[in-house]
């Protein structure tokens, strides 16, 4: 019963093809889904430049994670490696977000061979989950270098979900900025805005305004009637941002409004 894998069966000479590298062997997807950000008319086609920060601000339960997961899915479809760092949900739950939104997207756009495409893009995603109290930038750096040093995963886009923008967050953000610039990472954050301070222009907790210059793009989600409207608070070249995108409250998919 002792065995060393299947390879000895073939004289040990089999060429190992790693799962995270074999997408080339599969059929290409023929999917042409425009990035939702392109509709917002942002300065940068990717939303934010390399080493830049973007934020999605909204009260709890409005759809920050859903929006960022969609940005991530679009990046994954373009074969871009996405690292999703969650400080609130376990890996399995984040995985479900991706799966569900992908299925909704495939269903809405009637895209062919969704199952195969999903299998193809899955290696482009890595989920890391931290406990809030256990999270620090050095720790994150260590985890990422575990991946890059062994050539397991090289993230290009990072999503930081659940970081609490409280007083004292400044050094963490600065550390992250330094790391992102060094690695050429584009980083999106979710920013939890408390409902009670729903000032139309303020982003929420005090102190965040002071950090505004760190972010290239700030999107704000608001519930208007039955709809979730997306507004560009910062990052639109013309100054006043048009509210031209919204989210479907049932499927949480982005759509032109």
């Amino acid at each position, binding site marked *: *019963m*002792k*065995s*060393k*894998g*299947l390879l*000895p*069966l*073939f004289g040990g*000479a*089999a*060429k*190992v*093809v*790693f*799962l*995270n590298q*074999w997408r080339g*062997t*599969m*059929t290409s997807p023929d999917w042409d889904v425009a990035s939702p950000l392109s509709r917002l008319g942002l300065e940068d086609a990717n939303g934010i430049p390399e080493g830049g920060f973007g934020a999605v601000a909204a009260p709890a339960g409005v759809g920050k994670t859903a929006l960022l997961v969609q940005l991530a899915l679009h990046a994954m479809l373009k074969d871009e490696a996405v690292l999703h760092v969650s400080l609130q949900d*376990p*890996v*399995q739950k*984040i*995985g479900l977000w991706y799966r569900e939104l992908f299925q909704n997207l495939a269903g809405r756009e009637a895209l062919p*061979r*969704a*199952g*195969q495409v999903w*299998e193809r893009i*899955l*290696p482009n*995603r*890595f*989920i*890391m*989950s*931290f*406990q809030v109290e*256990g*999270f620090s930038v050095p*720790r994150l750096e260590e*985890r990422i270098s*575990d*991946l890059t*040093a*062994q*050539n*397991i*995963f090289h993230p290009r886009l990072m999503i930081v979900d659940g970081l609490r923008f409280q007083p004292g967050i400044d050094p963490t953000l600065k550390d992250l900025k330094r790391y992102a610039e060094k690695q050429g990472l584009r980083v999106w954050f979710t920013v939890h805005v408390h409902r009670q301070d729903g000032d139309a222009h303020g982003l929420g907790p005090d102190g965040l305004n002071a950090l505004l210059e760190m972010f290239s793009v700030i999107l704000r989600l608001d519930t208007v009637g039955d709809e979730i409207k997306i507004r560009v608070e910062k990052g639109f070249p013309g100054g006043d941002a048009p509210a031209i995108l919204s989210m479907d409250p049932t499927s949480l998919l982005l759509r032109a409004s």
Partner: protein
Amino acid sequence: MKNDQQKVRNIGISAHIDSGKTTLTERILYYTDRIHAIHEVKGKDGVGATMDSMELERERGITIASAATYCQWRDHEINIIDTPGHVDFTIEVERSLRVLDGAVLVLCAVGGVQSQSITVDQQMKRYRVPCLAFINKCDRSGASPERVIEQLRSKLGHRAIPLQMAIGLEADFQGVVDLVAMKALYFEGEKGERVVEAPIPAALIEQAKGWREALIDAASLDSDELTEAILEGGELPEGVLIEAIRRATLARNLTPVLMGSAYKNRGVQPLLDAITRYLPCPADIRNEALDTAHEERPVVLTSRTTDPPVALAFKLEDGPYGQLTYIRVYQGVISKGQTLINARSGRKFKIGRVVRMHSDQMEDIEALEAGTIGALFGIECASGDTFVAPGLSLTMTSMFVPEPVISLSIMPQDNRSQIGMSKALSRFTKEDPTFKTFVDAETGETIIEGMGELHLEVYVERMRREYDCDVTTGQPRVAYRETITQRADFNYTHKKQTGGAGQFGRIAGYLEPLEDGDFEFVNAIVGGAIPTQFIPACEKGFRSCLAKGPRMEFPVTGVRVVIDDGASHAVDSSDMAFQAAARGAFREGYLRARPVIKEPIMKVVVETPTEFQGSVMGLLNQRRGMILGAQDEGPQCVIEAQTPLAEMFGFSTVLRSATQGKAQFTMEFALYRQVPQGLAEKIAEEMAAKKKRAA
């Protein structure tokens, strides 16, 4: 009779391997006077825990087969099924959950909610089994019941509410505070057999009050009576609170959490009280059977003893006195001398002996009533069969049985072993639906199939020990599948018109990949190009090609066949001819549809101290694993990956040596995925060589 049933509890004890459930069961049996000495798992006394009745289980310190046992606690009858902890044996767990009314989820106060607990919890959800949680090992260093409760909420989504609070922790663990009665409980005597009530230590009173508030809050959501009692103010009647907790637990809206240390004999008696208070009696559960006479329409069973009997055989065991069949009676009474029918085979049989089991000892009884668990002797049946009164056409719902993913050839050493092996195989296949065996027609080898390396290893070991037969095993082989990746047309004519009765049939259409499902046959013929009476023959012909793919001879899945044209001959066309035409058409289309090999991919979850995270990820990556994520949980982290089964042989040894034995992993089948090209060629070569050898 109704009153009696309300004092019956059929419960399971499920948990992660090594969280101490066998030790806990042993204590339960001791306190309920079923055994008179406590033996430990892997006991030095050579006896081993009572529930681990198989020799192999005792040696390895794990529980493999679930032994059912019966005990009494404060005039309640409790039937306990001790369930195995390793994921390779989950069919045993699932089968137990099917017959249980409630469960105790045992968690380790140090390790918390681990991957296996998540699997077991999902199974409980599937069968809607209400449960209690027991946080064991509170005496261990690093114990933190609060962290475990938080994990129950965040990882499993339970509304976990503690009914107790630990008095001291780790080496200082002394007892628990009962938050319902607001008393401290200590366990005195050599084996903790005396439960002593005392006032709550002053230092803990404030915290206990806070926790009790949270408990009342949570329980009041399901109970108007409790809400009223709270609004009235004053002393809250204990009975009202208990009833509210019970109701919320039965609805799976609340998971009461208890704590203790089975090994140190603390907290076990209050757990028994909680089982009788909060877990359901058989009458609380709605059980359904399927009516085979009416297209398997679901029928609710009454659980009345006066109705005709319906029982499910959920486990078989080969004992020294012949086959022992564990049954759960759902309706009516099953008694000695009665004649019943096996719903699957339709055979009549007479019941000889009815017994109540206490692990491997037994007690003869006259009858088993609805809601109880017991065993019958000398009944010829398979696991999962339903026994009913003559005239009833009911069968209990069949359980979900996964397809095996790994196979192994076995060869008996000598003639004596040959006899033992066939006996053992027929026994194991009856006991375990995920274990299959057949003789390879080409090589003449006996092949066994199962759910993982350990699964098969244990059966081979059991053959040696229980049937005294020595077998040599071949290399484990992965159950590959074939599928197609693009659409391909076919147009095939089968023609034999040279003398004698002729054969003629032409089939045209196309094959295409089918994403969800194994096979679909679509008849798109218009205008009668193929006469309707031959269409079933076409489908049969196509189906017959699925068992062995034309390319690699692995089973074919994920194919849709559409036929849209054809031709027939007034005299020479027949079912036979169209079946042959379909086979030819399949071969023709299949090779053009870019067939590929698919391999089983396992979901592998590794729990490791954080310092080994990098090396564990490296190990998985080397094994062609795709790492899906890593979860930091303080000192521990959990890595989730999808890895081909073919690469996972011997992984436990490698993992142990890479992590100083501190990491553990579980593995279960996830999906089939296309084999990379390079490897596919090698597999093809290997298959060709095998064929050559067989020839």
